[in-house]
């Protein structure tokens, strides 16, 4: 007993130092990626046609009026100066002021995250809760009735776009049955239930296509593992079917599933743009859409950077997640 403890401690310490090195290298590449992304965003918006001042003042505006507004917005400064001002502001936690709304972007984004984050999380939960059991159940009895049904569901789900599902939901559940509001968001101050009610249909619409993909991945990953030698060995040793599935198959199948889930997070944020428009939710996606239309460059830059940042951070977490799920990866890095 006395000898085992230090040995275990040493093992933990080694794992810890390997994990730390992994986290630090991944963190460094995360920061480098963010810098490249910020430069790319800025350059793309530079060449994008559209003068925010002309959009704001319309076609009747005189040249001196346009010049006055450009100066007020700081658009008369050279590009490099504007880039450095943007990045400098970001480092101080200042996202700048929206051209159209004339309020701090941080406040705008904060308000919108109150909708988009719960929406995306709800969609992820729904999608995972649907996909994992369905995928495993389908794989457990290959070509059985459950498997057939799951295949049909996933085919349909992959083929049908989320905004169209959203429209059907509105027509049926809101217009026909009156169970849900036809769109809009009452705000969290209206209470948990009304807010949840407003988010449920869009979350399901957002989740279904992703759930379909995830179901297929779960099914094939589970099938791969079921066919592996160690599973046959476990069964041969007398472990029953359910226990094999639970203890040996599912944990191993989770690795590819995690990869897809990580990739899907960016789809949830991207899909939110369409779904938020259909359900008229004041989320980050709709803000991005409006800002692009109005060429509110300050807001677009920040939102695209936030979206990219979220995807990069999620990928970072997925990388770390692998290391936890799969001990082999730790020794390899």
């Amino acid at each position: 007993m006395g000898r085992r403890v230090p040995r275990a401690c040493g093992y933990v310490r080694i794992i810890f130092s390997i994990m730390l090195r992994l986290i630090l290298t991944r963190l460094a590449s995360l920061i480098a990626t963010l810098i490249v992304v910020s430069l790319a965003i800025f350059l793309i918006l530079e060449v994008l046609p559209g003068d925010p001042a002309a959009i704001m003042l319309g076609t009747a505006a005189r040249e001196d009026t346009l010049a006055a507004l450009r100066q007020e917005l700081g658009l008369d400064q050279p590009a490099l100066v504007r880039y450095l001002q943007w990045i400098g502001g970001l480092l101080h936690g200042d996202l700048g002021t929206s051209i159209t709304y004339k309020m701090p972007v941080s406040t705008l984004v904060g308000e919108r995250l109150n909708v988009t984050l719960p929406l995306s999380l709800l969609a992820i939960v729904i999608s995972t809760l649907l996909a994992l059991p369905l995928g495993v159940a389908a794989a457990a009895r290959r070509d059985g009735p459950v498997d057939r049904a799951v295949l049909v569901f996933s085919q349909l789900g992959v083929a049908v776009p989320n905004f169209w599902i959203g429209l059907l939901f509105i027509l049926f559940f809101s217009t026909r049955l009156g169970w849900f509001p036809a769109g809009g968001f009452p705000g969290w101050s209206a209470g948990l239930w009304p807010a949840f009610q407003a988010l449920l249909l869009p979350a399901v619409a957002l989740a279904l296509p992703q759930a379909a993909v995830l179901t297929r991945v779960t099914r094939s990953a589970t099938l791969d593992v079921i066919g592996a030698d160690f599973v046959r060995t476990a069964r041969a040793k007398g472990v029953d079917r359910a226990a094999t599935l639970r203890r040996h198959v599912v944990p191993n199948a989770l690795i590819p599933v995690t990869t897809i889930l990580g990739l899907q997070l960016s789809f949830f944020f991207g899909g939110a743009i369409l779904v938020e428009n259909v359900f008229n939710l004041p989320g980050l996606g709709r803000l991005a859409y409006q800002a692009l239309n109005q060429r509110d460059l300050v807001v677009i830059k920040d939102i695209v950077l936030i979206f990219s940042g979220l995807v990069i951070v999620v990928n970072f977490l997925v990388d770390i997640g692998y290391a936890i799920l799969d001990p082999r990866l730790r020794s390899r890095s």
Partner: protein
Amino acid sequence: MSKRFLAAALLFSVSIAPALAAKTSLVIGMPIEPPGLDPTIAAPVAIREVTWANLYEGLVRIDRDGRVQPLLAKSWDISPDGLTYTFRLQPGVKFHDGTAFDSADVKFAFDRARAPTSTNAQKQIFAPIDTIETPDPLTVVIKLKEPSGNFLYYLGWGDAVVVAPETAENNKANPVGTGPFKFKSWTRGDKVELVRNADYWQKDKTKLESVTFRFISDPQAQVAALRAGDVDAFPNLGAPELFTEFKKDARFKAVVGNTEGEIVAGMNNAKKPFDDVRVRRALMHAIDRMALVEGAYSGYGQPIGGFFSPNHPAFVDLTRVVPYDPAKAKALLAEAGYGKGLSITIKVPQMAYASRSAELLSAMLAEVGVEMKIIPTEFPAKWIEEVFKAKDYDVTIVAHAEPLDIDIFARDNYYFNYKNDKFKALIADIAKTTDEKMRFAKYGEAQKILAEDVPALFLFQLPKLGVWNAKLKGLWENSPIPSNDVTDASWSD
């Protein structure tokens, strides 16, 4: 089973409860959220549709028939030479922040709009002003450099509302005016809420306690919101094909009115072959405007032959000047040297009316041997850059929403590249004509010149398709000025 029924009943009661209480509140749906709430520093129509006459007031207002009426100025005199305007102001008017309104505010607002740093989208309204004097708190004397026939009318626009020096800077996010409603809150991306102004100078003018403007861009979602009772009125429904359903539904009133928006296919008049009036007329002859309205807007728009709103008293119907006549179109094209055919392009913004019209136009022109290729563009950003500024286009199509904007055909460097000295002189003359009857007669002449010279293909007037709860009264059927004036709106029992 009973549990499920209870749950359904509960959900149902939750969703209809607000509708029952909605006797003094009104929810208006709009397709586009305004970028800011100050009409004196930005052009978008959506700003006026929330704020004009509801939050802010000008010296005068435009009424639902398009006529000028007194508002913050209770009366005025114009000197015989048309150069001096003396306004007598309403006493006892207060801004929403409690400060008193007087002549100094008027001077401040107009000086701000014409200053070198001004970002007023219609700065030219104030260009004729020479001096603004305030001999006493309730009198404003404005002297003009030259007569301006429409000066009073322009003062009724959103660009000329009176704002206070203490609050003007913040009006974009926190508007303060003198109107019947006060700003309460703005949930960005969702809604703007206004509440009744208890200190309003016209006591008991409004019956509503609160007005909410909700922004719903998707046409299907607009219909769903109306059906579900989430929205009481959509004064300007986006999708004409969905409008017809409401006409059959007794719960709603579905009204076809006129906007000030003329849908025209502008041509690059400086570019071959559009520099030849025979070609421009040939293209006009090739277009069946009735069929166009039917196909592009479900039959709800008035065909036009010139560039003037049918709402205006000086309007002349000129659809017969260059009528639909494909044979004549072919003959004119042959005469101009394009008998063997002609190939042109049209830059089309993403709005539904524009893309549908462009497809129909393209098919109609093909009948007379003109191949018109559709090039999609994005409005406003890309269109302003490519078409409006760079004039890099053959034909394009947009609705011109501003009231009384026939003078755009006289502007130098406007995107039509149209030069007609006679027309330009006439517009300059109209600007100086203070006598209304004479001015209107001259507007008639100006309309005729354009109808014959066809600098743009005049298609149809954009209708205002209003849908609202049948119990709601007092909303405007036409929009002689971009607005959703709810001053007179109320619910019948």
